[in-house]
């Protein structure tokens, strides 16, 4: 069998990292040929659902490259992206897909060498990780399902608003002139990421057939109490309903959201 050649998708901002990649070309630097580049105006353009979709489609690695902090063409789009990637990595950790398959880094327009180095390094790293478990002819269904749940969570209002407001909450003040310490925000984010992921997972699972708390607990590898806690809040948000009761066990069914 020939050597594993990973598929890597790179999102490069037009002003710094794409120009850095151009410079690597002009300087004839040789690097691994696995990366496929998509040019966007700013790294901040990369909605969390974009890397998730790309990974679901079987990419072995996704790399987002932007301008160095303080050099962003759009003031601080790169820093906004950093917050999104931080959230995404937390989500990925829950799916069973290695978070190392996603990387964010900075390359300036003058750093052709750095671009070549990062690409080579990342390619090596992905080669070591091996093919993505959701690529190829027999993708791991469980991880694929988890990725779908992660994508749904990343599309959901609660997580998006939290990431979108991180800077405001931690650096500026809210309407009550309160500032949130960064570590407090981070643990809140952990909590929300996990809760949203579990809810979306439950939602996905109960779309095909009504399931009991016990069955859901097995499928999500959580304690029944933890599942029930999410079901309660999902019912409040009209995401789920009791389909029917078997004996004394209620079976839940997902509701269309939106």
């Amino acid at each position, binding site marked *: 069998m020939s050597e594993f050649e990973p598929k890597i998708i790179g999102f490069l901002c037009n002003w710094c990292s794409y120009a850095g990649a151009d410079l690597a070309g*002009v300087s004839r630097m040789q690097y691994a040929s696995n990366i496929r580049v998509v040019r966007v105006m700013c790294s901040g*353009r990369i909605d969390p659902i974009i890397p998730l979709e790309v990974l679901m489609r079987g990419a072995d690695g996704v790399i987002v490259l932007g301008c160095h902090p303080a050099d962003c063409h*759009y003031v601080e*789009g790169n820093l*906004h992206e950093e917050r999104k990637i931080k959230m995404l990595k937390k989500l990925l950790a829950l799916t069973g897909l290695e978070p190392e398959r996603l990387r964010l880094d900075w390359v300036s327009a003058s750093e052709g060498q750095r671009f070549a180095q990062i690409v080579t390094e990342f390619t090596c790293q992905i080669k070591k990780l091996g093919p993505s478990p959701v690529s190829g002819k027999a993708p791991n269904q469980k991880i694929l399902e988890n990725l779908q749940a992660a994508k749904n969570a990343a599309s959901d209002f609660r997580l998006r608003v939290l990431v979108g407001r991180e800077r405001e909450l931690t650096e500026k003040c809210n309407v009550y002139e309160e500032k949130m310490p960064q570590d407090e925000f981070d643990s809140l984010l952990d909590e929300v990421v996990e809760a949203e992921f579990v809810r979306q997972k439950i939602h996905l699972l109960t779309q095909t057939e009504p399931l009991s708390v016990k069955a859901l607990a097995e499928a999500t590898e959580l304690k029944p109490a933890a599942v029930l806690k999410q079901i309660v809040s999902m019912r409040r948000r009209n995401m789920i309903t009791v389909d029917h009761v078997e004996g004394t066990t209620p079976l839940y069914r997902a509701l269309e959201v939106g």
Partner: protein
Amino acid sequence: MSENRKPRIGVFVCHCGVNIGAVVNVPEVVEYAKTLPNVAYAESNLYTCSSEGLSKIKEAIKKYDLTQVVVASCTPRTHEPVFRGACEEAGLNKYLFHMANIREHCSWVHAKEPKKATQKAKEIVKMAVARAALLEPQTEPEIDIQPSALVIGGGVSGMSAAASLARQGFAVHLVEKEKTLGGKLNDLYKLCPIDKLSSEILEEFVQAVRSNPNVTLHTSSTVKNVEGFVGNFKATLDHKGKEETIDVGTIIVATGADVLKPDGMYCYGKCKNVITQFELERLMKENELKTLKNVVMIQCAGAREGKEGGRNYCSRICCATAVKNALEIKELYPSAEVAVLYRDMQTYGKDFEEYYQKAREKYVQFIRFDRDDPPEVIAKPRGKCTVKVHDILINDILELDADLVVLSTPLVQIEEAKELSKMLRVPLGADGFFFEAHVKLRPVDFATDGIFVCGTAHSPKTIPESIAQAYASASRAGIPMAMKHVRTEAITSIVDEDLCTGCGTCVKLCPYNAIRKDEFGIARVNDVLCKGCGVCAASCPEKAITMRHFSDKQVLAEATATLGGS
């Protein structure tokens, strides 16, 4: 509607002479392109950007009724405008064009792996075609330009820019925070390499500004707020607590720089005979310099620090300044010994090398030290100092007596710059100076249309360089004002009113204040202010925002074209 037609994409694969053709098997890529969905026509060209190549694109658009065009060649950063132009000439909206970079990102970087490079080129083309199929025509908004400019800063750069614009016939508002014009030139003694008094030069600049009726002077004034966009800025000026609003079409930032006060370095602040070059200028100007026997100058004091978060840039003017002032001291006190302790002597620029030679002829000593082993200034009684330095050229430690130690400290960004950067929505670089749109392609523009930069606000530079840059910025600012109207990029965001819940996340995130909530609480984008970064679209909690020309669908189509799955 024509855009609902099934796409008919034309693909043009460039050999770029041997640049692509010698590595990538171009005919194979062309044949492959023909098999891709929606591709109606594909060909190769020796040079697609040549006039022959461009006419081939134009012919093919007509002959094959193409709806989108893909050129697989070099980087869009340099050649996209050329191909877009050809499309427009053939009646195709320029946003229906997409480029596949198979040179900088392929043939040049995988020169030793022609097979892999060919495979990559095919995939790059496949991705480009997938995106192209989803491209839509866009209209660039046209806006009127008010033929007047605001120049912020009345130093040599600001005055040069203002005078230049005024001579072009535009009304100019020149704002200076101090009572008098001139900025740092007011404090300098003689200017090198002409050995002319700063005050004489200054007089000419002030005259040029004052005598031109197109210039309105606002001294003792600051800019308090700026709203609007290219052609239609509204600036609020503050003159001693009194506010005035002016309408201008363009803005030039010429706010200059400060000189670093090296508190704590080399006994500065502790010993009164340790001063900066800037303070020395002042002493010479006021004729207050006492008789000197031994002078030691220390270069790069607080510059080129080479540490994370430090002032790592070269201030560029200090070498020449030190040489000039060393010569000046020799002139005033011929028996004085002057030693310049340096890390790298770089008297770059016209006539400056000769200046350095002259200093050597006059026996100014140049002693080289290492960044990690800087000289030490030891304060002695009666204001005397001893400077201990490891001369790395003779590898010996020298002890120099000094009755004056002059520190060459770098220019640093002014304190108000941060606020101004926020007000104008223009970035500062890591070194704190204003950051241009592109170091080579747009060196005096900001990414924000209609705002330009010149002088030491942008980076430390000499007076001739500042003046040249000021003229450049005046000329750039003159373009939209002479055109009277401009078109801006169509890459902007659109809000789906039905989905928007008015949460305001985008309003807070937009770096250009381009999004406001209307009376119904729905986010509205000002197309002219929007620069198309897409942060709002990527963050909108309801996914109600789409980017023109970079929609999720278009980006994903390109990113997933070569992947499997759903």
